C-alpha cells in the first residue's frame, strides 16, 4: 500500500530534518551485499504515511527479472513504477539480444532515468542486486543520479543501525547460510531501533541459479533470539 513518503499534497509532510541537508530515504531499511559467488538483498516490510503505518506487509524487494532484484526506499510509487519499467525493458532487451541484461546495464538504465528526472522530487534510493555473466554484482543508485558499485550497501532511515551490525561480521567468503543469517540479524536490529522499520524481514539470495526467497519472517519471532537481555528495559 501507499507511499513511504507522502506525495506533495496538502496537509502531508515528509521526514526531512528541518534546517539540515540530512534527508534520509524515509522509513525503511534495505541492505544488500556481495560475497563470493552470490549476493544478498534484505529488507523490512513496513510502509508509513506520515506517522501512520500504512502497511506491515509491503514487498520492498522488487524483481526486475529472474536474476536482478531492486530494493526500495523512498517513495513507494516511484520505486515500484520505475522498477517495473526497467523490468519490462530488460525483458525486451533479452528478446532483442538473446542474452540477459547485466546488472551494470540495468542499474545504468535505471540511473539514467533518475538523472532525467533530477530535481523534480522523485524519491528513490535503491540497490540493484543481481547475478550475470561476470558474477554477482551490486550497485547503489539514488534520485541524485548517484550510481556506485560496491560490496556492501544499506539504505533507508534504519540503514545506519543495520550497517553497524553488518560491518562487524561481513567477509567476502561467507557461506550462503551465514550470509542469510547476517542479513536477517542486521535488519532485525534496524527494526529494533528505528520506528520507521518493522513488520516482516525478507531476505533474498541471488546466485547463478537465479533469485531465491529464503527468509520471510515476522521480526516479533526474533526478539529473544537477537536481544541478549530478556528485559533490557525493565518496567519502573
Amino acid at each position: 500500500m501507499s507511499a513511504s513518503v507522502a506525495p506533495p499534497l496538502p496537509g502531508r509532510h515528509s521526514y526531512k530534518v528541518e534546517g539540515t541537508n540530512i534527508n534520509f530515504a524515509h522509513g525503511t531499511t534495505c541492505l544488500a551485499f556481495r560475497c563470493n559467488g552470490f549476493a544478498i538483498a534484505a529488507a523490512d516490510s513496513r510502509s508509513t504515511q506520515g506517522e501512520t503505518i500504512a502497511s506491515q506487509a509491503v514487498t520492498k524487494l522488487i524483481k526486475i527479472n529472474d536474476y536482478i532484484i531492486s530494493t526500495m526506499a523512498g517513495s513507494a510509487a516511484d520505486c515500484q513504477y520505475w522498477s517495473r519499467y526497467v523490468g519490462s525493458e530488460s525483458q525486451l532487451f533479452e528478446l532483442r539480444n538473446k542474452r540477459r541484461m547485466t546488472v551494470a546495464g540495468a542499474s545504468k538504465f535505471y540511473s539514467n532515468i533518475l538523472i532525467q528526472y533530477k530535481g523534480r522530487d522523485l524519491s528513490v534510493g535503491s540497490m540493484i542486486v543481481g547475478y550475470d555473466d561476470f558474477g554477482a554484482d551490486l550497485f547503489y543508485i539514488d534520485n541524485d543520479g548517484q550510481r556506485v558499485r560496491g560490496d556492501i550497501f544499506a539504505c533507508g532511515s534504519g540503514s545506519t543501525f543495520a550497517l553497524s551490525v553488518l560491518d562487524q561480521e561481513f567477509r567476502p567468503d561467507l557461506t550462503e547460510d551465514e550470509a542469510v543469517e547476517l542479513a536477517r540479524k542486521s535488519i532485525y536490529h534496524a527494526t529494533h531501533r528505528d520506528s520507521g522499520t518493522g513488520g516482516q524481514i525478507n531476505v533474498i539470495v541471488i546466485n547463478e541459479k537465479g533469485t531465491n526467497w529464503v527468509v520471510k519472517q515476522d521480526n516479533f519471532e526474533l526478539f529473544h533470539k537477537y536481544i541478549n537481555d530478556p528485559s533490557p528495559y525493565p518496567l519502573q
Partner: protein
Amino acid sequence: MMMNQLVPHQDRNKEAKKNEWEPYIDNAGTCLGFTGEDYCVIAADTRCSNDSYQILSRHVTKITKVTDKIVLATGGMRADYCTLHKRINYQAEMFRYKNKKEISLSGCARLLSNILYNNRFFPIYAFCLLGGIDEIGQPVLYSYDAIGSYGKSKVGAVGSGGELVEPLLDSIILRHHRQASVVPTISNEELPTTRGEDGKPIIPKGIAIEYAHQALVAASERDIHTGDFAEIYVITKEGVERHMRELKAD
C-alpha cells in the same frame, strides 16, 4: 531588496499564502474494503464536505462499478476522483469493445496504477481501493496511494477516517493483535463465527456486510467528515450487490 526591509519575513509568507491559488481540496469521507472466503466487500460513506465544517452533500457516491467483478472506491478530492472513475470506466469499456471480454482485475489494477503515476508531478488527489474477483475466481483487494504505488491486501481503508477504521478491521477481520501471549484477556471463544483451518474465523457474507456497516458507524462517531449513509458493495462470482445503510447524520 526594498520589500525585505519593509515587510518582516514571516508576515510576507502569510500574505502570500492567503492569496495563493490552491489546486487541491480534501472532500474527505471514508472508504474501506476487505476480502472473505468467496467475496470482497467495499464500503464508503456518502458525505462530501469542504475544507471547513460545511457539508456539501449527504448523497454522494464514492464507489463505482467498473465491471461485474470489479469495484473501485476512492477517497480524497471529489473532482479528481470523479474524473478518475470516468477514465477507468472508459478504459474498461474500450477494453470490452476491443477484446470482446472484460478487463481482468489484475489488469485493471495495473491500469489504475499507471494512470495515477502518469500524473506523478501534479498528482490526482485520490486514494483508491480496488476490489473484486480475479481471473481464477479469488476475491482480491488492492489499495493505492495518490501516485500509483499499490499492493494486494486483505483489508484496506482510505480517506479521512481510514486511520480510524484500518486497525479496527485488522482486529475484527484478520484477528490481529489477539495472540493469547500478547493480550491474554481476550480469547478467541468470544468470536461468534466458525473458524477456518488456521484458527481464524470464517466470516459469512451476511455478517461481513454488518461488519462493514459497523466500521463506518465507528468512523462516523469519531470523524466529523464521515456520516449520513453507508454504501456497501459486495462482489462475488455471481456479480455485485449494493446495500445502503444509515449512518448518523450529525
